[in-house]
């Protein structure tokens, strides 16, 4: 049985040696995830496309710095994407306003890629678990969490945007993260085990 995480690591190792076909395969595997995260953060398809390109170029250039013992490749990719997308928004000074930042503002699509079809059952289950966990949070906690996660806002900035006290915002984010940690414990463990 294929181990997608191990395959990803092998691709990164080949990229570090200069094999561009490995980048092509990595793109096929992860372009939707990268694009989805970028789009969720910037809210604009054209900008999300540029970010997706930037991320794969960065990954090509930094393939030699990847450490498989620290994170899965997909985790590494999404972390780079999130930080790059938030950086772009900060540079443009155009972070989405609080009303457009949420966990459900992009519509799901059908899958076309054979890699994604192969991995889609497991991934879909994980996705459903995480979405279900988030949906269990009170709306105000979801909102504060979305502003921090998608917008890269600090406590203080979220407090100003939501016109809530700083203490209230801190509490909402802290409670949200504690509840998600509890609800997603087995998802995280499964994610970690797959990277081993």
């Amino acid at each position, binding site marked *: 049985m294929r181990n997608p995480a191990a395959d990803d690591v092998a691709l990164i190792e080949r990229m570090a040696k200069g094999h561009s076909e490995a980048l092509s395969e990595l793109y096929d595997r992860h372009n*939707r995830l990268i694009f989805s995260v970028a789009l969720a953060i910037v809210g604009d398809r054209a900008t999300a496309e540029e970010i997706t390109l930037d991320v794969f170029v960065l990954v090509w250039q930094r393939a030699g*710095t990847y450490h498989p013992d620290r994170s899965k490749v997909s985790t590494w990719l*999404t972390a780079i994407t999130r930080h790059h997308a938030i950086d772009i928004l900060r540079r443009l000074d155009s972070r989405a306003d609080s009303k457009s930042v949420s966990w459900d503002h*992009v519509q799901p699509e059908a899958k076309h890629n054979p890699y994604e079809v192969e991995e889609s059952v497991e991934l879909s289950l994980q996705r459903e678990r995480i979405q279900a966990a988030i949906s269990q949070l009170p709306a105000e906690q979801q909102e504060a969490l979305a502003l921090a996660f998608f917008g890269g806002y600090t406590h203080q900035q979220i407090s100003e945007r939501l016109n809530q006290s700083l203490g209230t915002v801190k509490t909402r984010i802290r409670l949200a993260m504690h509840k998600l940690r509890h609800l997603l414990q087995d998802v*995280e463990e499964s994610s970690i085990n797959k990277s081993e």
Partner: protein
Amino acid sequence: MEVGAHIFDLLPAYALGALDEADAELVASHLASCYLCRTELGSFQAVVEVLPLAVPEASPPPALKSRLMNQMQSLRAPKPVRVQPARPPLLQRLLPIWGFASLLLIVVLTASNLLLWRQVNNREVFTGPLGMRAIALNNNVEAAPRGSGFVLISADGEEGALVVDALPELDPSLQYQVWLIRDGQSLRGPAFTVDETGYRGARIEAPESLLSYSEIAVTIEPVEGDDPSPTGEQVLGGSLHNQ
């Protein structure tokens, strides 16, 4: 914050990157010496890592892959061997550091005990018997999750050394770059790479006393880059002044 107190309440927001700069610095400083809080932080970072999966799926246009692959043809492939024609070998460049750094280390080690090293780990400036200072640096938990480093500065500020540990190995096209910062202006310091353990020492020289600079930073920069100020991700940093 009470010295030695844990910072559990700040960790969820730290994992999200939602703390303001002062609180983030406080957390980073505490984490450097607190295993319990590092473990707790790891559990929240694991949550942040899976959150992207909650984003509804969307697809880029098929033409985007062609753009990427066309772009790749114009990019140079990662070099298997690092080329630095204008510089002597790294070991040779760093060799003089060992005289100074070793002296400092010997003095500090013989004059201090475990408690003093804990003080350094807590990012307090430790001043040795001859006025030498050892300053622990903060690491960027994303770029160098286990990275650590400290700066040794002689009493008059004329000589200094940087010792780093557990920094990630870099692509051959990249290197670590030291910067000395004063009044928002950056002075380029030594560049270095690390071995498989992430360890390296480098001597720091400057036209003026090192104590006249307010901060030090270590960033990741292209080997052939010559920007006058940092452009890459910061992995280590800290204040050179007494705190």
